């Protein structure tokens, strides 16, 4: 699903590469944690997957597309197949839960009828059926993140990218979010989650890829956060 081959990314006006000779292969349906300290290259990795940046060298394949040769006007096609969730939720404050999720479908050209059917379904999946008409400001952090996940998942992308999705949440709430991501993963979606949260990584026992200064220093099938040796 995601294949990095000897990928190096050096940002303009810097000498040190943010990612250096990284090769990673994530299969369809996998759940992968991406761990490492700030500045280790996690965000660069995610930006490359979303084609917000281009690799300086090496090749990247995402959902069957070679991102090196993908033309700009085809990037939206790629992003339709990659759902994204962020630490700061990125919800639209003036829109209700329903409208926030519907926004994604509107943008993709779904009809009102489809939207009226699909949105309540996905909102129920994330456990917010009762709060369809609330605005983000009236929801807790965990609930807001559920809305963000619903929005990312409503178009059934093949890949879900989550950048520190529990970074702003307390441990109890985080567990709920992880259960939700796990459930989405079980339905066949490949999930890549960047995180600092060691307890979550330790509990989930999924594949862990650890980055340090742009290098992959660990790729472990059933890893824990603090593993060093």
């Amino acid at each position, binding site marked *: 699903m995601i294949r990095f081959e000897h990928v190096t990314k050096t940002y303009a006006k810097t000498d040190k590469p943010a990612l250096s000779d990284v090769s990673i292969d994530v299969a369809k349906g996998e759940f992968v944690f991406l761990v490492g300290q700030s500045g280790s290259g996690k965000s660069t990795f995610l930006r490359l997957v979303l084609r917000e940046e281009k690799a300086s060298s090496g090749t990247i394949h995402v959902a069957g597309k070679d991102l090196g040769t993908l033309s700009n006007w085809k990037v*939206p096609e790629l992003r339709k197949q990659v759902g994204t969730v962020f630490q700061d939720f*990125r919800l*639209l*404050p003036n829109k209700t839960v329903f409208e926030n999720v519907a*926004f*994604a479908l509107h943008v*993709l050209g779904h009809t009102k009828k489809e939207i009226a059917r699909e949105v309540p379904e996905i909102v129920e999946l994330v456990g917010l059926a009762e709060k369809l008409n609330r605005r983000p400001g009236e929801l807790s952090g965990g609930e807001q993140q559920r809305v963000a996940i619903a929005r990312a998942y409503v*178009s059934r992308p093949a890949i879900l990218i989550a950048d520190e999705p529990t970074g702003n949440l307390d441990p109890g709430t985080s567990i709920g979010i992880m259960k939700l991501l796990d459930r989405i993963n079980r339905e066949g979606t490949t999930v890549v989650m960047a995180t600092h949260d060691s307890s979550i990584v330790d509990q989930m026992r999924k594949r862990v890829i650890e980055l340090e200064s742009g290098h992959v220093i660990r790729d472990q099938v059933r890893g824990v956060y603090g593993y060093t040796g």
Partner: protein
Amino acid sequence: MRAGFVMSEVGIGLRRNLTMTFAVVITVAISLSLLGIGLLSNSQVRTMKDYWYDKIEVSIFLCGPLSETPSCAGGPVTAEQRLEIQQDLQELPVVQTVYYESQSEAYQRFQERFKDSAIAQNVTVDQLPESFRVKLKDPTEFAVVESAFSGRPGVDVVQDQRAILEKFFSLLNVLRDGALVIGLASVLTAALLISNTLRIAAYNRRRETTVMKLVGASSFSIQLPFLLEGLFAAIVGWGISTGILSGLKFVVDDRIAPLLTFTNFFTWNDVWVASAYLLLTGVVVSGFASVLTLRKYLKV
């Protein structure tokens, strides 16, 4: 994206930024009006030229007892010379009509024109020259007549009335050009204002555009609502400017035309043509300003 969704986004954008929208509409209206006034001045100058060129003549004054030009050295024009000149004139292809004005007719006309002046009493019939009044098919073909008759025995002076009007028209042309320059400068101002407004709008809605980008909207569908907002403002502004030009036309017909009877004025047709150009200008300028701004500030 569906049209209904795009329209609702446009509506939200315009309302959220109501004062800026208002400013853009007013600026577009004023700048297009100024440009429209420039275009109408152009029509007006053209109308006046048509009106006057249609009335002007080439005068061929014949030698009289007081003529001093070399071609009059043989004394006043003879009857044969006069006849010959008339025949030659009528044979010239550029000539439309020829009218002979005798000394007594010239005297009558003179008396009429200067009837309140002391000069009228001091002029006698034989002091005024007889002449041919020639109307040309195309008033710019004066040189043909001049080269054929100037210096010919019996012809004193060949005079083109157009030369007098030209000075007047060159003044009007300067005024017209000034109006067009002011109009274009203000259209440029409007373009810059549209560009800045869209930049602010893009900044205000960066959450929405970020989300649109993330879920896989094409850059076109992200930019479209902004583009339509710019166009909307331009079209409303254009509507107002057309209203202003129509108002101007009413004022001209109602107040100015009765006072200035020596010319025609631009027609309603000129107003509609100018309005069509303004619509084109408004749409193209706002489109250009929008696309350039959005390409810079809404990178996908």
